[in-house]
């Protein structure tokens, strides 16, 4: 009989390995709660409504980028063009709203279209050019940054017109709209990844490209869609960042210090995702983003020097990469 040898139990070794993997995957929940409790006692003003809302706002920006990023990495694509997409979309937003006088909804639509275009561009290079995403998107990011620079004439575009910032400052049940948008992104992401055919194909393509291909999964289309979703999330973040700051972000960097490819990558890896694709759960990323945000916020409140905070964040990435590689070796 098939499986007679192993029926009932899979062997102690396999079980133990699965237990360790479970801990590695879900450790982020425990660590985040511990960190939170720690700062409640150690960091002044940490546990105030105002600060907690600040944490959520700041997490929402990094969180939306990360949600999209998650989809790309699940499909096995390390998308490094986040900064470039942010730059193009922030300039698009500022130009259309301030200088072209577009309505708010139309501005948002075009900024998101710019994101979709950027994602399609990435897909073209990765799929048609058959170039590894990590390298391909590094190159396309250069193009996107240059396009943004050209469009903005090398200037930061300040937004004097009313209506944009007000829209993101709107609070529903005391929580700013950007935070609701982030939660919405994660809910949509969770449904898409766990409940739809596309989600199943994204996981399979990332986990084993060849097996997915032989099973009739339209792998190239899946990769294109994943890259578009990743860019779309970055573009959405760009709209929010631009609205909050009332100006375009030069190189997509100036204001959005914590919204970048490295943060997204750190969060994704801390969340138990594989650098090589196909493994991970999107809800853990939300927690990982909160972890990183709380870490930065708490240290700042404790008056730790910015340089030190950056070093700590740097080590978080190093640790996350080690975790990811260990995980990959075990499976």
């Amino acid at each position, binding site marked *: 009989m*098939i*499986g007679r040898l192993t029926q009932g*139990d899979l062997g102690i070794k396999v079980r133990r390995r699965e237990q360790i993997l479970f801990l590695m995957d879900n450790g982020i929940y425990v660590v985040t709660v511990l960190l939170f409790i720690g700062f409640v006692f150690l960091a002044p003003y940490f546990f105030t409504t105002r600060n907690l809302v600040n944490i959520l706002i700041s997490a929402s920006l990094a969180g939306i980028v990360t949600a999209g990023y998650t989809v790309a990495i699940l499909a096995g694509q390390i998308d490094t063009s986040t900064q470039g997409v942010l730059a193009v979309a922030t300039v698009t937003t500022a130009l259309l709203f301030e200088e072209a006088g577009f309505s708010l909804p139309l501005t948002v639509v075009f900024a998101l279209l710019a994101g979709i275009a950027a994602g399609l561009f990435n897909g073209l290079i990765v799929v048609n050019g058959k170039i590894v995403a990590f390298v391909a998107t590094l190159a396309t990011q250069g193009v996107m940054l240059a396009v943004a620079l050209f469009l903005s004439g090398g200037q930061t575009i300040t937004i004097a017109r009313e209506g944009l910032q007000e829209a993101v400052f709107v609070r529903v049940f005391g929580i700013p709209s950007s935070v609701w948008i982030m939660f919405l992104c994660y809910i949509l992401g969770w449904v898409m990844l766990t*409940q739809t*055919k596309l989600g199943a194909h994204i996981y399979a393509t990332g986990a084993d490209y060849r*097996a997915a291909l032989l099973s009739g999964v339209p792998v190239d289309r899946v990769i294109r869609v994943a890259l578009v979703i990743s860019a779309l999330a970055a573009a959405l973040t760009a709209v929010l960042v631009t609205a909050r700051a009332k100006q375009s972000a030069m190189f997509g960097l100036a204001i959005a210090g914590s919204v970048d490819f490295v943060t997204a990558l750190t969060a994704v890896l801390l969340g138990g995702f594989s650098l090589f694709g*196909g493994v991970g759960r999107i809800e853990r990323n939300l927690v990982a983003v909160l972890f990183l945000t709380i870490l930065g916020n708490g240290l700042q409140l404790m008056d730790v020097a910015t340089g030190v905070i950056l070093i700590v964040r740097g080590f978080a990435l190093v640790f996350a990469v080690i975790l990811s590689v260990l995980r990959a070796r075990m499976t």
Partner: protein
Amino acid sequence: MASDEVILETIDLDKSFGAVHAVRSVSWKVFQGRVNALVGDNGAGKSTLIKLISGALQPNGGGFRVRGQETRIGGPAGAFGLGIAAVYQDLALVENRDVVMNMFLGSELTRGPGAIFLDHKGMLQQAHQVLDDIHARIPNVREMVRNLSGGQRQAVAVGRALIRGGEIIIMDEPTAALGVEQTQEVLQLIDTLREQGKTIILISHNIQQVFEIADYISVMFHGELLGTRTRDDATEADVVAMIMGKRSP
């Protein structure tokens, strides 16, 4: 045996890779509800021939007749459409996905508007049923494939072929990487499939095993099909001689 029906036939099938003539004008009959073994030395063209049948490669010349009808096999999807499903030597399973998702990979059951939502419950039920039918005992169909034994994996891959509507199941060296006990499990699986009326194309190196399980034994040598014997008509010595290139005795 004489009354066996031909379910699939290749007609003067030809395939070259540059200067290498891998399959030379092969006309091969596959019999319905039987285990059709294809043997031959390394590089004899067995893998190329089955890749042509499973749609993974396109021939340079010749064609196919499936259930009496001349047809072409445009790709893996076209092969599935004709009820031909290949179980690749490496099984093409996704290690980090569970048994159910692997069995339905690429042919997921869906529900809801636009058929975009997965029918998890339906897939679970059908996976259980198919695995029961082939007497595969996998304790938990939510188990990751990475934790399964070699025999269990083979069952998952065969289950996938059946879910695809596979009537002609191609198994490429299914026992090559397995130990004695697991090999017996796979042979039993093949036997079960035959009892259920499935047609099996079995590629194997192991002559003893072929004699143990196959109804028909076909031998390839240097890209040519040297001949087909029924198991009862052939001796191991004959078949070995043919594998070495000796034409019909």
